[in-house]
């Protein structure tokens, strides 16, 4: 049970202001999700042959330079790193799976929050304001950003249990609602090789989409299948490397508002999260339909 916000830029006009525009949106959803908050930001894309991991160590003094060096020599490839508080972004000129395996073998305490060529996920227990200032979000640049504030229902209030969830390359999902068939679905997906880190229902939805995409579904097909296979109440906002999608279940009890201008598409659980966006007064504002998905993709 939660608040969702998302901002997808249709052109480069607000690219340098992405974090600044996003900050008040997430804060506006504080009441809907006082337990934890998080976001996935897309941009700063790495080139062909490179992969980007967002990793976190609970010990802020962790030596990322050393980890990068070790990784570089083990994988025999170039590794660059930057850090932001307790999170680091590792850019690896090598294979994602090899990098993941190497990390989990050598540094089991380091948690991989996201992997891909563009995505970076940051999340934390506590109020949105805390995470926004901790990671200095207002200075962030990028193409799209999806955020979440969580009111935990059945799984624990932890950093790992916070949204967004990412179970596939450059994929992230945030959820408002409550799924009712996630436990059995999780077991099925585990047998398909999807790895889960929590008991959270929303992570199952993310894992499900990752699995469908792996099977060769387009995002549209994956969402169509999701409508059939996911039971319960949900509003999802989904990010991919180039795309942004919003979907509601057939009953559509959980709220969602969309706003679109020439320059952006914005989504929020409540309109009050959109009021600070530039040109919102003249935006097309509407409520997404039940059992319908809305996809924007950069071609």
């Amino acid at each position, binding site marked *: 049970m939660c608040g969702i916000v998302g901002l997808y830029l249709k052109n480069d006009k607000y690219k340098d202001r992405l974090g600044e525009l996003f900050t008040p949106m997430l804060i506006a959803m504080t009441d809907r999700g006082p337990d934890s908050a998080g976001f996935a930001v897309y941009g700063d894309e790495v080139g062909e042959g490179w992969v980007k991991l967002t990793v976190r160590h609970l010990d802020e003094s962790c030596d990322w330079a050393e980890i990068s060096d070790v990784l570089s020599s083990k994988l025999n490839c170039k590794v660059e790193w930057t850090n932001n508080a307790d999170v680091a972004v590792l850019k690896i000129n090598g294979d994602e799976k090899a990098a993941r395996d190497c990390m989990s073998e050598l540094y089991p305490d380091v948690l991989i929050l996201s992997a891909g060529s563009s995505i970076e996920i940051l999340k934390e227990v506590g109020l949105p304001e805390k995470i926004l200032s901790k990671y200095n979000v207002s200075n962030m640049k990028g193409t799209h950003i999806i955020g979440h504030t969580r009111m935990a229902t059945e799984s624990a209030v932890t950093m790992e249990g916070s949204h967004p969830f990412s179970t596939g390359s450059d994929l992230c999902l945030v959820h408002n609602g409550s799924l009712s068939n996630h436990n059995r679905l999780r077991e099925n997906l585990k047998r398909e090789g999807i790895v889960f880190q929590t008991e959270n229902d929303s992570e199952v939805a993310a894992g499900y989409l990752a699995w469908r995409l792996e099977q060769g579904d387009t995002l549209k097909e994956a969402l169509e299948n999701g409508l059939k296979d996911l039971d319960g109440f949900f509003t999802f906002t989904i990010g991919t490397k180039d795309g942004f999608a919003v979907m509601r279940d057939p009953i*559509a*009890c959980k*709220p969602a*508002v969309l706003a679109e201008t020439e320059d952006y598409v914005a989504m929020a659980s*409540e*309109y*009050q*999260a*959109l*009021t600070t966006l530039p040109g919102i007064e003249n935006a097309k*504002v*509407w*409520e997404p*339909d*039940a059992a319908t998905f809305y996809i924007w993709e950069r071609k």
Partner: protein
Amino acid sequence: MKTVDLTTSSVQDLNHALHQQSSSVSEKNWTITNPKGSHNIAVGLDADLDVDIQGHAGYFCAGMNKEANVTIHGNVGQGVAENMMSGVVRVKGDASQAAGATAHGGLLVIEGNAGARCGISMKGVDIVVKGSIGHMSCFMGQSGSLVVCGDAGEALGDSLYEVHIYVKGSVKSLGADCIEKDMRDEHVIELKGLLEKAGVDENPLEFKRYGSARQLYTFKVDNASAY
């Protein structure tokens, strides 16, 4: 006229001030600026006030209204005018789901579209929507009338009791126990009156009427699939 700016006043202070008018009206006209999607604006009013909200409002705007005339110059969130007893609530933009839910009386006019469950469990209110309405509208509607100048979504009037539903456009599907009915003279007169009251310029003869088949009023085993 009194103006309350919600960037400097809280919704709580605003509502408190509006409630003070219940015993005797000293200030009839109120303008609310910068609502910015705030929830619960102008709820529980109990006096003949004119309240103008200059922008978008959040959930439950004008909830449980009595007597007051509330106009929202923008969109509203869930449950606008929920459980309204009397008065008029007019939304210039779109309304989210459950507009006019369980409302007992008064008039709700939505000049844009309304989302899902418009008029759910309505108990006597009149609702006029200039645009279209979403799915499951008028679910378990008990009494009053629902007028839709655009289209209606799926399962219109499911498990309907005695609401009079008039739709000008298409109906995606009718819910259990809701059927199309003849538009008799008395219905044209009623609809004409509702359109006039709402200030909507439409020809009543272009509407179709829907109502309860009254097959679910007492349990019959043959209807089990409809439950």
